[in-house]
């Protein structure tokens, strides 16, 4: 650890005994740290109604995605030439499909449910990859400083100055459009936000005396990062994770919409919208259904993320 102690202005008098009582009151906490061990249900109850609704919807969608084979009323890839572009059953559809059928007679609802699984899965993995890259880079940058720091920050600057869509598009052109490539590509989106946040937080936390105490005890950098820094910067990172999730989801659906994301026969919400677009005039449900899923999903998570940010009170700039 370098320069952990900088010459600082101390508030001590000229060698006189002084009464300075800071003994009671909460300890100095890192930003975002909260000491109360609130469980999820306490927090949930304290949340406004709209947030509770969002969380419930999210849970519902998550469960639907996980248990897609049990929830979906039809086989999503079962085509039926007789039931092509049949409207939803409550709109006068003949074949009894709740959200109608597509140009190949496949059940739209079942396809939406399976697409949800794919889209959420990709976004989730992507967000986790980005977060891990970013947090590791940020910790290295903040803890080691020097050339490591400069090099990492240069890559961050680089990523910030190139529109991310371009990187992804070039990546797709180079590596093709397999799901793995897609996950890795959307995973590298936003890693720089985690890196910058983590670095800033590490620099703040590093100045706390408990980190110096750990150094004095002989702890390794690795241990300090794991035991002292990570737990103290976890909350803002979780907030950022929540806020980044919708944009990753949108990135994947935009790519799939353009036809350069998830490839057939796998369905994703964005690709369903893209395919349905050609039939938009006659069969609007092909577009509206998956689009509603996308909007609902991103709105919910975005709202939850905004709420979390306000509750935990972090500035993410």
């Amino acid at each position, binding site marked *: 650890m370098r320069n952990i102690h900088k010459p600082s202005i101390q508030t001590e008098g000229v*060698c006189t*005994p002084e009464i*300075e009582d800071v*003994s009671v009151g*909460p300890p100095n906490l890192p930003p975002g740290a909260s000491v109360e061990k609130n469980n999820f249900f306490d927090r949930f109850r304290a949340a406004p109604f709209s947030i509770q609704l969002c969380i419930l919807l999210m849970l519902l969608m998550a469960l639907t995605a996980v248990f897609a084979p049990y929830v979906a009323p039809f086989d999503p890839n079962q085509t039926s030439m007789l039931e092509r572009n049949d409207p939803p059953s409550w709109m006068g559809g003949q074949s009894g499909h709740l959200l109608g059928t597509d140009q190949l007679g496949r059940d739209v609802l079942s396809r939406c449910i399976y697409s949800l699984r794919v889209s959420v899965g990709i976004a989730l993995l992507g967000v986790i990859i980005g977060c891990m890259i970013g947090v590791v880079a940020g910790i290295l940058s903040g803890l080691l400083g020097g050339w490591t720091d400069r090099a990492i920050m240069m890559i961050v600057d680089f990523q910030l100055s190139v529109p991310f869509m371009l990187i992804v598009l070039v990546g797709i052109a180079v590596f093709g459009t397999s799901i793995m490539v897609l996950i890795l590509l959307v995973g590298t989106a936003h890693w720089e936000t985690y890196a910058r946040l983590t670095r800033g937080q590490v620099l703040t936390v590093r100045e706390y005396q*408990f980190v110096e105490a*750990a150094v004095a005890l*002989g702890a390794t950098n690795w241990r300090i990062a794991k035991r002292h820094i990570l737990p*103290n910067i976890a909350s803002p990172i979780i907030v950022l994770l929540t806020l980044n999730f919708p944009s990753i989801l949108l990135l994947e659906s935009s790519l799939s919409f353009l036809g350069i994301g998830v490839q057939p026969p796998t369905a994703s919400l964005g690709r369903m919208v893209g395919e349905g677009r050609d039939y938009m005039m006659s069969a609007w449900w092909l577009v509206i259904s998956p689009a509603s899923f996308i909007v609902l999903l991103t709105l919910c998570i975005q709202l939850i993320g905004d709420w979390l940010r306000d509750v935990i009170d972090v500035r993410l700039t």
Partner: protein
Amino acid sequence: MTVEHLVEMEDLRTWFSARSGLLGASNKQTVKAVDGVTMSIRNGEVLGLVGESGSGKTTLGRSILRLVEPTSGQVTFNGRAILGMKKSEMRSLRREMQIIFQDPGGSLDPRMSVGEIIAEGLQVHGMGTRKEQRDRVAELLRLVDLEPDYAVRYPHEFSGGQRQRIGVARALAPKPTFVVADEPVSALDVSVKAQIINLLTDLKSRLGLTILFISHDLAVVQHISDRVAVMYLGHIMEIAGTREFFNSPMHPYTLALMESIPMPDPRTRRPFKILEGDIPSPINPPSGCVFRTRCEEATAECASIVPGLKQVAQDHAVACIRR
């Protein structure tokens, strides 16, 4: 293998580079926080280190432990030179040299339970099994007069004095031989202060610790120390046995410090003027004797000669050309 001097500092310097000015990096300046300290700490003693804010005493304490990297010189601990030691070697040596911090709140990780905090040193150095570590934590909590079942609580549940006791327990956990106590009581209120001082005195005799006790409070230092050193702008001005130090202080700066101790009786006349002005900036310390700008006895000579510590009596050294 007891040595007479547990810690020896030889011409130790710790300089920081500080950037200032509107033009950024163009004018680098050097803060000479510790500037040529040669001093040793005897095995089993409490050495009090006093000085004003900005005198470099805290930096000196951290330099000895290599919590800040000294610029030059050497520190010898128990006969081993620690500057230039390999990182891993240094880490294992840290078991023997610990630190107690000024701010009992900030030095405890709010995310860890008291037990985890105290056990960290044991874990780092692989001392004992989990069970043994738990027992040792309980033993340490009793040692600092806390309940053993506090181990499962978190730092914010405690008062300042209790937190400082936890800090002491953490420092003592790996059974160190040397402890730097960096203003351990200056953030506490008076009654708690006395308790912690007594605890430290007690622990020192029970565990045979060697302590560098850093403080700006002469009264506290008088109470706990075997010897006292005075620091000013990175230099040691005077060092003497406690009794000798308080009975016959020699350095003009020490005399001025003594004057600033409040007298119980306000009618007591003060023979000297109280210290005036602020400590000069360590970026641009005065030439010659660093104290001359505030010294009543300064002469022209003081600006040119850097006074070294010289023996003036048994166990008493002063850095002043007029003594």
